[in-house]
């Protein structure tokens, strides 16, 4: 029964976690400034709805912009790499090196360069999702069934048309898995950016609440962030499913 209704299963798991959280608070007699119970967090959410909503919109804008830009740059990089063997030799090592850099460490520099506004957070999100998108899509582009390419070659297709008309559609499922990952990673980038330096956004609000020992408000902002990320993941997932259905 539960296996056939995944959304019900999710609901039960969620309720179970909430109950465990409440039980922990009650049984361990934790004071609210260490760990508030779910009821208290809900109350904080209700009392500060306008405030959280405003900051949430800022974070959402950063995440969406970062996701869109990171997906586009990642996909274009993969297409360029797939089309040009010299580019592969030069750019792939660079890509790997960028992955060896802890992106978190770049956040203060980005804030220094781009200021406290939206763009340092957008760029953080872009940096975090760029590699998974480019890497997944590139792998897909390089794994086109050989027979399709042989046939296109005999038909006299130039390489760029082979890329656009055969390799790209064939790699859409791989791009979709990259995008699904990106949907979950993008909020991480935005929040790191907001922690390092911001005057708005859920990450900023969480830091502020934490500093003033308003742990219930911090958890409320965190809950909104989790819901936002899950919703984004679901939406991107639906979009990707539709994309994959078109090519299979």
């Amino acid at each position, binding site marked *: 029964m539960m296996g056939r209704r995944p959304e019900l299963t999710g609901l039960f798991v969620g309720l179970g976690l909430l109950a465990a959280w409440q039980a922990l608070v009650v049984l361990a007699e934790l004071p609210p400034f260490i760990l508030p119970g779910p009821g208290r967090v809900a109350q904080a959410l209700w009392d500060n709805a306008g405030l959280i909503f405003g900051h949430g919109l800022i974070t959402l804008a950063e995440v969406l912009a970062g996701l869109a830009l990171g997906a586009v740059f990642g996909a274009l990089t993969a297409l360029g790499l797939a089309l040009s063997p010299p580019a592969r030799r030069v750019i792939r090592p660079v890509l790997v090196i960028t992955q060896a850099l802890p992106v978190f460490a770049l956040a203060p520099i980005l804030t220094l360069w781009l200021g406290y506004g939206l763009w340092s957070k957008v760029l953080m999100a872009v940096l975090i999702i760029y590699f998974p998108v480019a890497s997944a899509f590139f792998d897909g582009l390089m794994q086109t*069934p050989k*027979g*399709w390419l*042989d*046939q*296109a*070659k*005999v*038909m*006299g*297709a*130039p390489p760029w*048309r*082979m890329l656009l*008309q*055969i390799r790209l*559609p*064939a790699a859409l499922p791989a791009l979709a898995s990259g995008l699904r990952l990106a949907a979950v990673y993008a909020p991480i980038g935005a929040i790191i950016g907001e922690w390092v330096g911001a005057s708005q956004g859920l990450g900023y609000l969480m830091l502020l609440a934490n500093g003033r020992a308003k742990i219930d408000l911090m958890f409320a902002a965190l809950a909104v962030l989790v819901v936002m990320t899950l919703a984004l993941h679901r939406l991107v997932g639906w979009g990707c499913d539709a994309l994959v259905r*078109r*090519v*299979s």
Partner: protein
Amino acid sequence: MSAPEILLEGRASINGAPLFPDLRLSLVPGGWTCLLGPSGVGKSTILRLIAGLETGAEFTGQIRAGDGAPVADRIAYMAQEDLLLPWLDLAGNVGLGARLRGSQPDPARAKALITRLGLSDHIAKRPGALSGGQRQRVALARTLMEDRPIVLLDEPFSALDARTRSQMQDLAAEALRGRTVLLVTHDPAEAARLGARILLLSPNGLSEIPPPPGAVPRAVDDPETLRAQGQLLSLLRAA
């Protein structure tokens, strides 16, 4: 459209180990040449060399057309897998070649070919909705849509059941009449039915076996054809 003779002269090796020795292979102009042989002897390599495809073998020699014109842009190719693109409907797959060259496929011709191969009920379907035999007929329609004088067939019927296979052989023989066809196959029955010239490739080289009498495609139960089939199988076992 004049269908030229195709000549391949030379030898091939893989990492220094000989694949096939010096040989001279000639394709009947405007007719079917069947290249028969056991697996791994280099049949497909020969076909891919003529097609200008990657083979992984080093070929020393030359490939040319009897009329002296280039071979490369006069070829259509059909493989064992149907190679249909799952995201295109049947008409889209049949017209793929033109679109890959940046021009518009002629929809009336595509439709006529699809109808001729008995697929008109399925024209808006995608390959996933078709049976194996239907899919290979779409592949044949796509090959015909290319309208090339030289057609290279790499075991295109070998994954089909016996009944569908014999029907596809009839259909292909009729549809590709007048073209220079190379059929690579490991099926003696197929070679005996379809070959105007039958060649057996073994590790020692190429030998030509006289085809049975009668026009291609020969009847499946024709005694001469069946005798030739038996003879080909014996030779294949000895190869």
